[in-house]
């Protein structure tokens, strides 16, 4: 019976007996990945709403809606991981203020409300129009969603724009705070050398921005293809530029952090180097670094240097975006799982055992990642976010 309750990890060297069961599995890999996508998608939307990147107009509302759909599912990996999910509200009822995790409920609730509000203001004209036009249950739903605020005069719209601007501004620190805080959850622990770093929050932040931008690039192109409309190449190129720039910065931060860790060479560095030279070669050096980060940087650099246009550019950017999304997922894996593979004794290494089925298995993790996409598929029908340059078919 007992062997069904937990999976123990094989190890080498000396590890504490209790360390052989990993506290955090793939769901805790998915959790920072999801919050990162939320923050990244919001950043794209804010680049238009706040910073006036007009070229991003075709995806601005789509980015906001994507951020909301992702945010709705952010608590799910945590709830699935908890031993007692029915007690999850304890952390909000009696928050233990010294814990970085205690504020999660409040920060994410605040951000969720902010996202709902900004989405409501952005889509209010559509909601009002649909409420007036449609009959039946759907019409009623739109009328309820308009909250009785059906004034679409120029004055009212000006008022709305003010709100959207304000919410987008508040949303920038909120979205990035939410994700920077996730980095702090790991970086603040002194028990694991692999995590314990002041650079962890900014590293999480920049990887969040690139993953969210990459997701939008892919979703935007897929949505255009599904709807049969022309991809706005200027918009795509701007997102490609943003991803390129932030990617270089994210890579630099990770390099600095790793360099400092090796240079400091504190107790346990021998085993960390053994980890780096052995088990980390495929998930980090090959997948996250070479394939996921260096390859897209090279592709994008080539495209922008040569001034590639049209379909080849679109393909290059989309391929790069997919690689970046994969790279960031691997980064979450290498942080969360990698950190636990290095024993706290500083004298041994553990090997994570994948679980396929089960509450914390790979299938559950995949479902948690796919669920927001399904919700988004529904939401773009309820609240179409498209701003297409021309209605003709591509």
């Amino acid at each position, binding site marked *: 019976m*007992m*062997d069904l*309750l*937990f999976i*123990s990890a094989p190890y080498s060297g*000396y*590890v*504490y*007996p*209790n*360390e*052989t*069961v990993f*506290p*955090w599995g793939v769901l805790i890999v998915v959790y920072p990945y999801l919050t990162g996508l939320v923050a990244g998608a919001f950043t794209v939307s804010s680049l238009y709403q706040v910073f006036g990147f007009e070229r991003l107009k075709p995806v601005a509302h789509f980015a906001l809606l994507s951020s909301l759909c992702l945010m709705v599912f952010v608590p799910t990996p*945590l709830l699935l*991981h*908890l*031993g*007692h*999910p029915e*007690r*999850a509200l*304890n*952390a909000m009822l*009696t*928050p*233990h203020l*010294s*814990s*970085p*995790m*205690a504020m*999660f409920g409040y920060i994410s609730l605040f951000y969720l409300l902010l996202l709902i509000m900004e989405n409501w203001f952005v889509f209010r004209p559509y909601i009002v129009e649909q409420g007036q036009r449609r009959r039946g249950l759907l019409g009623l739903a739109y009328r309820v969603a308009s909250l009785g605020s059906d004034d679409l005069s120029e004055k009212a719209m000006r008022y709305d724009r003010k709100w959207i601007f304000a919410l987008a501004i508040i949303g920038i620190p909120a979205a990035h705070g939410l994700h920077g805080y996730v980095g702090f*959850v790991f970086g603040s*622990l*002194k*028990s*694991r050398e692999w995590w314990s770093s002041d650079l962890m929050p900014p590293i999480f932040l920049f990887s969040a921005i690139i993953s969210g931008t990459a997701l939008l690039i892919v979703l935007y192109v897929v949505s255009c293809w599904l709807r049969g409309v022309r991809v706005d190449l200027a918009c795509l190129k701007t997102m490609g530029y943003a991803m390129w720039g932030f990617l270089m910065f994210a890579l630099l931060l990770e390099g600095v952090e790793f360099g400092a860790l090796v240079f400091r060479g504190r*107790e346990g560095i021998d085993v960390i180097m053994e980890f780096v030279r052995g088990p980390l070669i495929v998930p980090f050096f090959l997948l996250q670094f070479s394939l996921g980060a260096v390859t897209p940087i090279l592709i994008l650099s080539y495209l922008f240097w040569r001034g590639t246009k049209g379909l080849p550019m679109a393909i290059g950017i989309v391929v790069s975006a997919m690689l970046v999304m994969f790279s960031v997922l691997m980064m979450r894996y290498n942080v969360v799982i990698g950190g*636990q593979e290095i024993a*706290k*004794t*500083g*004298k041994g290494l553990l090997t994570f055992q994948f679980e396929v089925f089960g509450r914390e298995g790979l299938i559950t993790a995949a479902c948690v990642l796919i669920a927001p996409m399904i919700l988004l598929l529904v939401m773009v029908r309820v609240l179409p976010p498209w701003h297409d340059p021309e209605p003709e078919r591509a």
Partner: protein
Amino acid sequence: MADQQGPAEPKPGRRSFLGFLGAAVGTGAAAAVAEATGSGVVAKAEAAAAQPAPNPNIPGYDWSKHQWAFGVDATKCIGCLRCVEACKTENNVALDAHHFRTWVERYVYLEGEDKAHIDSQADPVNIAASGSEAHYRFANRYQDAKVEKAFFVPKLCNHCTHPACVQVCPTGATFKTDDGVVLIDHTYCIGCQYCVQACPYGARFFNAEKHVTDKCTWCYHRITKGLQPACVEVCPVGARVFGDRRDKESPISRFIRENRVEVLRPETGNAPNVFYIGIDKEVG
């Protein structure tokens, strides 16, 4: 009782929260009373509000009168592992090689080598020697080697003065009692395992049956009745010492006073309350 993590009553997270509410209500009530009857009553109400936190609901026990601490004399430990067995039985800990409230490490320096060979009773070789994960013994694996130096180090929760596990607990389910013990309220823990990550000593584990975290309580159910922790009680050589630091003549007070003691990983700032003598540079 054996499988309980400490008393059911005290929950500082909630207690301080309720205390805060109580103080607020109390202040309001005191103000109302002051208007009606004068300041004498107010002083009484304020005195009531300033009273120390309530004791655990254990008859005849006052946690404000004790300060528990633990000592390990590694020079005495013979690695018999009766402590591990007693702990598992006393506290109903899962009988497998991955869940321990206490364990014993063996450090062996072979001739010509600079680094110790380290294992615990959970090592596969030692399990093979004992015949089962529920039985504990150290295999005689170095009988053909030239051993230069060897010793055993019992490990357990350090019940730190600044416990990293308590710091990170999002709900306050794990807390430090007034008598110096770190406990977990199993009815309040959400099972996030952040505390398991935060403990630098590997003292915490996830109780897969109760879906909450678990660890050594210094046998809180025993020490609050005047008994010794189970591991201390069964140690045949007196390698484990336990007592009240408030009592200057208690075994632990004398242990700390009469020896040059050290703690594990002092650089973490956790300030452990398990004091060691006879450990070596590689012990952490």
